[in-house]
Each structure stands twice: as structure tokens, then as C-alpha cells.
């Protein structure tokens, strides 16, 4: 089985903490993914209009690159990229009219019919590593750390691309548990963080983000684990404003699931780039003696 890897724009720049930890952890687990050559932006959001095929071109071109590499699977880490690529793939697989129109329009590309499977890294770890092997690979169990999983929207909606069915999903919980942390039952695990409306309607988006954080706070989470750079921006980097303006009582550090993995596997803390996280993330892990105290 050959596996391609699609990083997406944000992971190469503002979310290096997501990509570097993912790739280092996968290497430690014995997997090397092949990055797509000449990948382009996936478009971040899916076009929801029946008559707008133009915005399908970007994700479909990425899928064609994976097929050209001879891959069966295309792994993505960013939740937004996962959703956009997986939905474009379904259109190419299931909708003959749109598929023909897109293939005809891109006559310089080989035809594509959804042959590659788009897989989110959480499911890749579930299926290819397995919880037992993951548990056995942990060198520094995250004992005592109360982690709330946060799926957000794009990993679970719409249902046809859900990594596991929403509400009943357990992949994130089992992942956290395998790392030795305590899973907190998070009532806001599938809520929306406000998404891209943080730029256009920040007040409403921050209100949605405050609800998500409050729900995790009520159940006593130490940290909120997530897989999306946009969720991390709304819930982590903009959190100060929530404490000031939206009645949030305490700070709740956010962390990418791949950073938890890197810490648990005992990888070099420098690759975690905690400087890109919520300011409380590093200090909480230091306090719990899960990472060495950094020299200031």
C-alpha cells in the first residue's frame, strides 16, 4: 500500500506545530508518508452550489496528483483540508455528470474517478498503527492529564465524510486514552468554533468559541485537543478575548492531537513548537513534568 500526504497551506506556515509533530511521530511509529508533488490549496471550504464546479478543480487536482503517485490513500491532517478533499473525492466517485464535466474541463490531466481514498490522520493511526501498538510505543504516558477531545465540524459533518459518525465517534477518545491521558467526556466535542466567521463576524464567532470552551471547562478538562488550525485560532489564540468579553472563567490550553502524540512518544520537545500554541499549553505540560522545563 502506498500512502500520499497532503499538507495544505497552513501546516507549512502558521501550524508548523501540527505538521512537524505529525511527521516526526509517524516516523517514530515506522511510517513515512510521501508528500504530494506540486500540491495546491484545497480551497479550504467546499462549494455547496450545484452549478459551481469551478471551485472543485483545486481539490480534484490534488487528488489526481495522489493517483499519479500510484497511491491508494491520501492522508491529511488539517480538518478543513480533509473535509474539502474527501467531499471532492465523493463527487468524482459518485456523480457521473459532474465527474465527466470536470474531467473534460481538465483535459490536460488524466481522468479521475475517485480512485484514491482520502484519510484523516486519526483514522490512519486507528487502522494502520492500532491502539495496542500505539499504547506499546508510548514512552512518556500522559498520566493524570485530563484531555477533552474536540472534533469540531469538518471531521464529522456531513455524515458521508465523517471520520466516524458524529456523537458516537470514539476514535479521538481512544487515541487520547492510548497515550495514557484521561479522556474527559466533552459535551461540546462536535460543536462549531465559529469557523471562518472569526474574520467577518468575530463577535458571533467568539460567542460560539466561548460556548465550546465553557463546555470543556465545566467537565474539568486540563486541555482541549484538536486537529484544525482554524479551531486552534478561534479557541486558542483568540481565547484571551473570550476571558475578557465572553464570561469564560479560566484559561483552557489547546493542543494539536499530534503534539500530544509527540510528547507521549518522548520526541524532542523542540519539534512541538509550543510557541505557536495557546500560551498556557507549554507551561501546563511542564508543570505536569511531561516535557522538560524550557530555558527562558
Amino acid at each position: 500500500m502506498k500512502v500520499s500526504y497532503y499538507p495544505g497551506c497552513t501546516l507549512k506556515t502558521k501550524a508548523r506545530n501540527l505538521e512537524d509533530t505529525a511527521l516526526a511521530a509517524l516516523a517514530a511509529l515506522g511510517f513515512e508518508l510521501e508528500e504530494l508533488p506540486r500540491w495546491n490549496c484545497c480551497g479550504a471550504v467546499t462549494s455547496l452550489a450545484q452549478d459551481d464546479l469551478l471551485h472543485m478543480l483545486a481539490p480534484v487536482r490534488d487528488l489526481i496528483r495522489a493517483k499519479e503517485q500510484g497511491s491508494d490513500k491520501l492522508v491529511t491532517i488539517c480538518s478543513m483540508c480533509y473535509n474539502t478533499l474527501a467531499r471532492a473525492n465523493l463527487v468524482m466517485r459518485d456523480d457521473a455528470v459532474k465527474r465527466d464535466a470536470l474531467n473534460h474541463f481538465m483535459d490536460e490531466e488524466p481522468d479521475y474517478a475517485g480512485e484514491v481514498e482520502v484519510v484523516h490522520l486519526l483514522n490512519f493511526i486507528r487502522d494502520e498503527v492500532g491502539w495496542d501498538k500505539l499504547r506499546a510505543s508510548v514512552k512518556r504516558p500522559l498520566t493524570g492529564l485530563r484531555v477533552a477531545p474536540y472534533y469540531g465540524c469538518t471531521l464529522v459533518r456531513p455524515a458521508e465524510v465523517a471520520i466516524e459518525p458524529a456523537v458516537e465517534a470514539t476514535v479521538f477518545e481512544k487515541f487520547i486514552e492510548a497515550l495514557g491521558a484521561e479522556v474527559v467526556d466533552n459535551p461540546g466535542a462536535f460543536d462549531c468554533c465559529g469557523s471562518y466567521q472569526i474574520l467577518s463576524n468575530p463577535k458571533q464567532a467568539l460567542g460560539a468559541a466561548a460556548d465550546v470552551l465553557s463546555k470543556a471547562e465545566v467537565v474539568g478538562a486540563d486541555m482541549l485537543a484538536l486537529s484544525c488550525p482554524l479551531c486552534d485560532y478561534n479557541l486558542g489564540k483568540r481565547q484571551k478575548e473570550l476571558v475578557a468579553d465572553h464570561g469564560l472563567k479560566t484559561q483552557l490550553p489547546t493542543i494539536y492531537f499530534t503534539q500530544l502524540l509527540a510528547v507521549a512518544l518522548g520526541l524532542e520537545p523542540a519539534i512541538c513548537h509550543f510557541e505557536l500554541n495557546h500560551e498556557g499549553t507549554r507551561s501546563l505540560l511542564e508543570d505536569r513534568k511531561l516535557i522538560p522545563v524550557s530555558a527562558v
Partner: protein
Amino acid sequence: MRILINGRTVDQDFIERVEEISGQNIKQCMQCGTCSASCPMEEGMDMSPRKVMHLTQMGLREYVESANTVWICASCHTCEARCPRGVDLPRVMEAIRLLTLRKNKDAVDPNQLEAAVIDEAPQVAMVGCFRKLTA
């Protein structure tokens, strides 16, 4: 709000175009309000998603297009996941947005974003926002 409804106020073209672009049968909506109750952004909307569906069913284009609802929708798909009638509301919202955007009217001006926000906000936020809210 008092709204006059008669044969002359029904904009049949609006109904047809929303249905065509969204691929949804908007008459399927039975006005239960599950969408509004589930919507994380509803608080900031001056017309709830349920009401947008209702006024769209009646072809009241001006009311629907002057509401901020579709511009605050974050396409989170919670309404779509919960709708007991199987209406894909995010597609209806997108269709109503596009009827305005296709007249080359933007709902957000990228030039108005603060430098600090541009510095920190992830690319997925910017691409997503501009894709949904600019022509």
C-alpha cells in the same frame, strides 16, 4: 414584523433559483425550528434559519436578501445533520449568498482586516472566509 403576502409578492424566480443552485426542495421544510435551535450563530442573526426557510418558501426575496442570516452562517452543517426533513440548509444558505455575490457584491472587505489578525489567522480562515463571502 407585518408582511404583506399575495400573488404579486411571490417572487417565483427567487424560489426556482434557490432550488436550482442548492439542489434542495425547500418545500420539504415543515418549520419545526430544529435548525434555529441547533445553530451556533443564531444569536447574531436578525432572522433565524427557520424564518429564512419560511420566507424563501413564500418567495419573499427582499426580506430574505436584506437579512444578515446567510452572511453569519458558518457552514458548520449542524442544521443539516439534524434536519428531520433531510433539507441540506447550508446549501440553501449558499444559494441565497450566491444570488447576491453573483451581482459582484462582496459581504466582506479583505482590506478592512487588521494587520494583527492577518499575521496570526491561519490561511484556512482567510481562504474560507473570502470564498464564502466575496464575489
